[in-house]
């Protein structure tokens, strides 16, 4: 494979070195771009009125389906709303859904997994069987059932999306806790006579968080995707200011005649998920004990 290049090893290595130098800057460029995207979208979520040129609620029947242009940067939708403003305002609910369902689902799953892993024994056996059972039920179906049952509202969507991710978080957290709880420093703390609760809270939990955090970062993106799936299946929230997933799923019928309506919210989702993933990867790298100082 590398026959030819290896002929002059020294020079080849130099070339490699310079490439990797270039790579470092390329990957940081990536990371910075990702951070910028996330920051910008968070800004949109917090203060859309400072960023969006129009109100997302204004429906102008004279400006239907306008392609992107000077007046409407990203065009207008079938109500005559400004797509750019929609995307900007949509950030709030989208991010809310993402973050909240990670908080709820991840929090719950994390706690269950951590406790089950730490306590072990029968508790663990039972919890793990339950989690396996939950895992065997496709997540979106759980979400679907809940969304169908409690009706569409932002809160319920969050609930529905969270329910599906609980077992994943529980699994990840549990396996990490299992590793950490056998670390010598945990034994050390126990040999000192620390209570199990304080060992759990002070040693095990903090040292088990990193894969969980990585998963959570990435999970924000996947939750947004799941909620857009619900929207697609007709269980989304219809609000005056729709989230990206809703715009995307409602605008998809216009793809051939007005591609911009759902392309931009779609791009917003993809960009956000992508950025969050890039950041998540980096978080993983920094939290990886093999790569950090200890």
């Amino acid at each position: 494979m590398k026959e030819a290049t290896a002929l002059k090893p020294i020079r080849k290595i130099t070339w490699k070195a310079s490439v990797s130098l270039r790579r470092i800057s390329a990957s940081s460029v990536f990371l910075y771009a990702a951070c910028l995207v996330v920051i910008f979208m968070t800004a949109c979520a917090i203060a859309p009125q400072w960023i969006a040129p129009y109100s997302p609620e204004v429906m102008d029947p004279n400006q239907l389906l306008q392609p992107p242009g000077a007046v409407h940067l990203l065009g207008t939708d079938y109500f005559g709303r400004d797509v750019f403003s929609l995307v900007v305002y949509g950030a709030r609910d989208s991010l809310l859904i993402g973050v909240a369902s990670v908080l709820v689902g991840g929090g719950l799953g994390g706690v269950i997994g951590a406790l089950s892993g730490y306590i072990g024994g029968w508790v663990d056996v039972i919890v793990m069987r339950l989690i396996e059972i939950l895992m065997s039920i496709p997540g979106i179906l759980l979400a679907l059932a809940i969304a169908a049952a409690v009706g569409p509202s932002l809160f319920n969507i969050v609930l529905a999306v969270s329910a599906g991710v609980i077992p994943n978080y529980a699994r990840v957290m549990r396996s990490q806790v299992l590793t950490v709880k056998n670390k010598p420093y945990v034994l050390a703390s126990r040999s000192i006579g620390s209570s199990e609760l304080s060992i759990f809270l002070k040693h095990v939990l903090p040292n088990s968080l990193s894969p969980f955090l990585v998963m959570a970062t990435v999970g924000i993106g996947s939750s947004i995707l799941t909620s857009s799936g619900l929207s697609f299946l007709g269980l989304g929230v219809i609000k005056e200011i729709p989230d990206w997933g809703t715009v995307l799923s409602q605008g998809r019928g216009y793809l051939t005649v007005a591609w911009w309506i759902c392309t931009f919210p779609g791009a917003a989702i993809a960009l956000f998920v992508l950025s969050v993933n890039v950041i998540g990867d980096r978080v993983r790298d920094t939290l990886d004990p093999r790569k950090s100082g200890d």
Partner: protein
Amino acid sequence: MTEPLLATQGLSVEFEKSGKFLEPVSDVSFHIGRGETVCLVGESGSGKTITSKAIMRLIDFERGRIKSGSVKLDGEELTTLPASLLRSLRGKRISMIFQEPMAAFDPVFTIGAQLVETIRRHDRRTLREARAHAVHLLQRVGLPEPKLRMDQYPNELSGGMLQRAMIAMALACGPELLIADEPTTALDVTIQAQILNLLGELKTELGMSILLITHDLGIAAEIADRMIVMYAGRIVEQAPADRLFAQPRHPYSAGLLRSITTMDSDRSAPLYTIEGAPPNVTEFPSGCRFHPRCPLATAKCREEAPPLLGSDGHEAACWHTDELLEELSLPSPQSEKLSPEPQSSGIQPPLSAGEAKAALPETEQELLFDVVGLTKHYPVKNALGLTKAVIHAVDDVTFSIHRGETFGLVGESGSGKSTLGRVLIQLEQATGGQIFFQGEELAGMKPARRKMLRREMQMIFQDPYGSVNPRWTIGDTIAEPLEVHQKLSAAERKSRVEELLGWVGLNPAWASRYPHEFSGGQRQRIGIARAIALHPSFILADEAVSALDVSVQAQIVNLMQELQSRLGLTYVFIAHGLNIVRHVSSRIGVMYLGNLVEVAPAEELFLHPAHHYTAALISSIPWPDPSRKKEFSAIQGEIPSPANPPKGCRFHTRCPAATALCREQAPKLSMIGSEHSVACHYPL
């Protein structure tokens, strides 16, 4: 002088790590003659492995490169050889074996497949021929039932067997040079002796050259023709083995030799130590890299790196070789005084050594622990929670520990030493038997009382890196027991922590630092500080020095002994380095497969072992003196599985003196001297 098989000249290796360039190996020149065994010794991080990888250009795959210098194999330059030619040379003319045999095999292929792959890579053979050859090789390295082993996976063999298989693989194409990188470090002494024997045999039989990398001077003394000592990426001394041991010309080599604990060391004197710890590759000192730790260092040493000079094959890189020789030639029984303080920070412990002696408790014979018929079994469960098998980790162990003594525990891996220790200090509950602590039975005790007593028992761990929480400052780590058991104000706690840091020889100002800023030895001191924070009466030291560099081991052992005398501590000291155990222990217990087979005072045990297993263990220890080179009388075979221990005397499967009686009936531990008891039907 004929052309050497391998010659390196001015070899320097460079790595790129997050944008910075490191040079872990600089200007290394040495040669290996045909049929010669050369030992490369040095502590962790001194660049031994990298040197060997550089020879085979394996560093190319690790983002490393040869910065300058040459490596010649039989006159052929390797540094500029194209990759394809290099590959046909690797495994054929130079082959390698590694430290961790379990990790060195691809876990998903059979031993046979991996051997055959190597053979067919270099020699044109049919599959059948290659297999036949592989079986032959396995047989040659002494693997029992070689045909069967061919179709086994690495995880199905023990470490010792794997190392034999690894050697077979290295020999597959009849190499001229065998590089063995710490081939026995991961193995038990008994197995180590077997492997070293094998290497010796093979060398004479095949006439190949061996480059053996080790940090154990004992091993080097056993088999080396010539030795190369590396320190911080440079060769500091090289010489024929006997001459180096007889008269080292570099203060580092001299220090290393002196800090080894031998089997006839003076147990009353503290161990000799080299101050400080080996430097990290990112912060190699200027000039002579040893100068910060060198008692002879001068301004010149700090500024200028000494060249490797010498005559008649004995070379050293030191500006002060002459002074050293002078000092060494003085008959000085007090030479330990060269550096009596083990502390690197220079902080004085509150008590001097003399005072410490006086503080030893009068009631030497007071019992601290009395253990009767202690048993610990671990059930192995299947998916449904049903017990599949029982591991007999500790079986019916009876012994006692006196207050103020150090009780050593030795035995091969898996013999149950750690388990016994953990049960002793109540980290786990025994399956059977009784433990009396200061006359009270622990098992029947009220939880509150047990918690009280738990303060009396602390532990020092093997892994200095894993035993402190990486997210806590070392101050918090040391303060943890105080937090749990004593309600102290923040200021009180702070002063306690500073006091403790001082006791273990660390700078009290470092309390707010994080573990990753410390070296292994320093972390072990942190662990010790934590263990003594509550003034316990008992400390379990499970392999507390095993993971440390030779020069640092001595420092920790000295510190522990000093603390023992000052605080009246009782230790159970578990280690696989028998010499160290002998040095620190007053009495030693020998464990085999969950049983305690012999207990005796340290000197007595080593001078007059009564159990065949003890004798075998002792004879397996490499002797760091080339002039006393001996044939290892290693025991055969390996320790059986604790899930299914042999009937009768558990050692009978490996015992040279075993009879039908041994196979039938387990011997009881019985007294054969005033303080010497043994469990053997036919004691020595």
